[in-house]
């Protein structure tokens, strides 16, 4: 019974996702105004040949700052979990 229910839910999911390749057409994006602007003016404004880099570091610099902070926070979390503990310090491992 439970397996039938899970299979039914998956079939509904699959049917819902199959709308995606039926509606969208590959290789023909709908709204390209912003990207056309980047491609036309990005080289002159940021003086960089690589438009992706100029989008990442110049036009969307705040985005990249947040990304770096997320990476930093993840590293801090890992370091806090595995840090060397002092003698006699109480912790919940083991």
């Amino acid at each position: 019974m439970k397996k039938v229910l899970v299979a039914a839910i998956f079939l509904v999911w699959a049917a819902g996702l199959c709308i995606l390749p039926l509606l969208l057409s590959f290789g023909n994006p709908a709204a390209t105004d912003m990207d056309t602007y980047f491609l036309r003016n990005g080289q002159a404004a940021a003086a960089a040949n690589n438009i992706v880099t100029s989008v990442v570091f110049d036009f969307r610099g705040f985005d990249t700052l947040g990304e770096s902070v997320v990476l930093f926070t993840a590293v801090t979390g890992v370091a806090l979990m595995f840090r060397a503990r002092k003698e006699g310090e109480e912790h919940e491992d083991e």
Partner: protein
Amino acid sequence: MVFFNLPYVAVVVLTLIGLATIVLKRNLIKIFLGITILESAVNLFLVSLGYREGGIAPIYTNAPEGLMVLPTPQALTLTSIVIGVATTALLLSFAIIIWKKYGSIEIGFLRRLKE
């Protein structure tokens, strides 16, 4: 018509594989593998949204003539990949801590929170 949209079909298949792995598997490492497969599906969807027919990479260094694909989805995919790496590192650390504390990473054993 569906065969011209082969990347989107791949997105659907990868999404279903990832969701099935997350829901049906009992091992934490396999669940994390499912999360990673789901992330790959999202990245593939983002990149294929920005593809233009016959487009070249948006880099002007020795570029051939032709239309360029959209740069913004690629930049957002870069963000998504880096955040995925950070999340995966944290998840694996949690798996190691759980394995040290409980001696197992099967989620059937991890029932102490329910008491």
